[in-house]
């Protein structure tokens, strides 16, 4: 392709408000032709910005794939905004309700049960969530535990007694 008449081409484009025929080919030529830069940038100085930085082709894909999957796994393990995220506030509310009711309810058994106790219904719902949380310490009874529940914007320390039945 020979060097296009840039002033005419730019005037045509500005007049029409859209790309004239052959505009794409002219730009391809411009990217390779040093002489054209002088006349083209004089006719439309904004063509200079065709030289804005471009990432190296092909080098970014595999590192990007690894970054995305690593981040995805870490979010899933952290329980951030994953599928379990919606459970956070209802679960926290349920646990608080559990303590409120438990504090005014009947006194728990003082002797350890001989068989594994039936999990209270509220706790049963929360088992999957609570099981994933780190146990900070066990209290006197093996069914009493102190758990920490940390999410992006929520951090709760829970004292859980599995014998409570609400």
């Amino acid at each position, binding site marked *: 392709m020979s060097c296009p008449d840039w*002033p005419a081409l730019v005037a045509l484009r500005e007049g029409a*408000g*859209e790309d004239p025929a052959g505009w*794409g080919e002219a*730009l391809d030529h411009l990217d390779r032709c*040093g*002489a054209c*830069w*002088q*006349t083209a*940038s*004089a*006719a*439309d*100085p*904004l063509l*200079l*910005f*065709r*030289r*804005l*930085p*471009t*990432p190296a*082709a*092909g080098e*970014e*894909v595999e*590192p*990007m*794939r690894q*970054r*995305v*999957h690593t*981040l*995805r796994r870490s*979010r899933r393990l952290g329980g951030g*905004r*994953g599928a379990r995220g919606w459970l956070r506030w209802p679960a926290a509310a349920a646990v608080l309700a559990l303590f409120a009711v438990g504090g005014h309810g009947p006194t728990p058994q003082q002797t350890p049960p001989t068989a594994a106790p039936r999990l209270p219904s509220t706790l049963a719902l929360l088992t999957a969530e609570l099981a994933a949380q780190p146990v900070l310490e066990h209290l006197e009874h093996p069914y009493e535990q102190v758990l920490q529940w940390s999410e992006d914007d929520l951090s709760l320390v829970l004292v859980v007694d599995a014998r409570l039945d609400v």
Partner: protein
Amino acid sequence: MATPQLVYSQRQQRCRWGEASDRDLLEGLRGDDELALDELIRRKTQPLLQVVLRILGDLEESRDVVQTAFLRLWENRGRFDPRWSPNTWIYRIATNLAIDQLRSRRSRERQHEPYRHHLHQVTGGVARSAGELQAREVRAIFEELAQELSEKQRLAFLLREVEGLPSSEVAAILDCRESTVRNHLFNARKVLQREIRRRYPEYAGAARHGEAG
């Protein structure tokens, strides 16, 4: 021989996604298929990174934004409406994140000194032709002049004039009418032309002064 079968199966699935359309890949994402995500990353990393890099100007920051865009795509895979153009949806997520990043960066930065001072140091005070400028220098000039643009004007200019996307697609990405895109573009061009001629006349108008070859 469970392992060889699994590897073979994955390889076949990868081949299948390699031939699928973008729309099929998003359907695959909706079915929780991680290999479809891999194929989208393979196809879209380069073009997305290019757009975001041109918005932000920093490669590492742009990588973070594109990575987050893919993650958003995965996390919101159930929300994709098959009536949308896949490209538009992906570009919209990435450009919105880039603009958020730009805003948070601006809030951290003070008004920086015009690039001219640095450019004169780099070139030893000798103005170079537009053809001799390096990409990073062009980037710095754009960054300085684009301070005069609104976010929409900046995006419309980059997507339409630099990336060469059609006005209809730019409108879909920016979630506005084509006439609005044309308006943003007209104003962006006017401001940038005025400012480049005022601040960097050596790169804008050589031919008018009889310097062109």
